[in-house]
């Protein structure tokens, strides 16, 4: 019995070490150019995101995934209009729009929003495993990006695709405090960028990039 337990413990420790080294290695793994994913959080967030993506070389990537909420029926037109107006090179076959449920409606209670967040994460995770190869994920702070970031992280740590890099840009209107989404995600993203210098002192991970709009 004791021998069996010892085997089990050794096996468990071995497994953990393996996982640990895999994590460490995935830090040095470079992303490829299979897929880039952009999250449009509606309203002001979509507007801000558009000015962030203006100079990205989308044509280098095999696939471009644009994410928006099911209930958001403005962002898609806005984005397509913007791509045309700014003559951004991107093929229609490259682009795939992904609709996801909002994790939290405005004024929803805390208890019910944990439930909807959870179901939203499951929904996103299924979408993300299907895509699998997401090399770059860019999001700018709306609650909508939370389930997507969690899904991409799970995808990464379950070793389905370890090359994913996540860039989080804090919204332009955040001058002195981080958004709730930012506070939750800061530990897990690869780059955390802010547009106002005052925010840098809040956490050593924060990088000041200056105005992006």
């Amino acid at each position, binding site marked *: 019995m004791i021998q069996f337990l010892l085997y089990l413990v050794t096996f468990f420790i071995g497994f953990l070490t393996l996982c640990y080294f895999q994590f460490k290695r995935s830090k040095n793994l*470079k*992303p490829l150019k299979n897929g*880039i994913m952009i999250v449009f959080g509606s*309203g*002001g967030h979509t*507007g*801000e995101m558009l*000015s*962030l*993506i*203006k*100079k*990205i*070389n989308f044509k280098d990537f095999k696939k471009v995934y644009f994410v928006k909420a099911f209930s958001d029926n403005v962002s898609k037109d806005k984005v397509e209009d913007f791509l045309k107006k700014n003559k951004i090179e991107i093929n229609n076959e490259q682009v795939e729009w992904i609709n996801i449920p909002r994790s939290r409606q405005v004024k929803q209670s805390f208890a019910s929003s944990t439930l909807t967040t959870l179901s939203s994460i499951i929904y996103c995770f299924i979408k993300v495993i299907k895509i699998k190869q997401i090399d*770059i994920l*860019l999001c700018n702070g709306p609650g909508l990006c939370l389930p997507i970031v969690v899904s991409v992280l799970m995808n990464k740590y379950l070793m389905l695709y370890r090359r994913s*890099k996540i*860039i989080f*840009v804090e*919204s*332009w*209107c*955040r*001058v*002195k*405090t981080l958004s709730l989404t930012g506070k939750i995600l800061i530990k897990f993203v*690869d*780059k955390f*960028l802010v547009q*106002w210098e005052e925010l840098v002192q809040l956490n050593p991970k924060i990088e000041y*990039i*200056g*105005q*992006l*709009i």
Partner: protein
Amino acid sequence: MKKIIFATVGTTEFDELLTALVQPDMINLLAQHKFTKMVLQKGRGKFQMIEDYIKKLPIEIELFDFKPTLTNEFQQADFVISHCGAGTLLEGLMLKKKICAVVNTTLMDNHQEEILNKLLEQNYIYGIKDLNNFSSQIKEILEQLNKDVLKEYPNCDDTKIAKVIESFY
């Protein structure tokens, strides 16, 4: 020559601001500064104006609740009075407009004031933090309007994010 003032509250409601703007002393002040038209976007507010009152005013009034885009209104305006929403302020700034942001004090826990203070500090906009003595505050701002007190909002380097992405490769 038309001279247009545009007041906008975005997707919120801010009837107190619109009411303050159409008071007789305010209208007279605008007329004195050669404004010929005032465009009011009321959003979700219940604000209304009586036809007879509008007819008597020395300047033209246009009132509507929403439009798919306000770009035209911004572009035509010589001066913008805006609620303190980041989206609206940003749109005006990017179109290089002279803007006065008015804080809606009826909203609690307004983190939008953070960005307002920042913009005021940098002299990119004018600001009004409460509606008391509204017309005298506006009067002061109108007097400064042609004196280049404001700095133009700078165009930013739009290749920054593309460079961050490249840095991973």
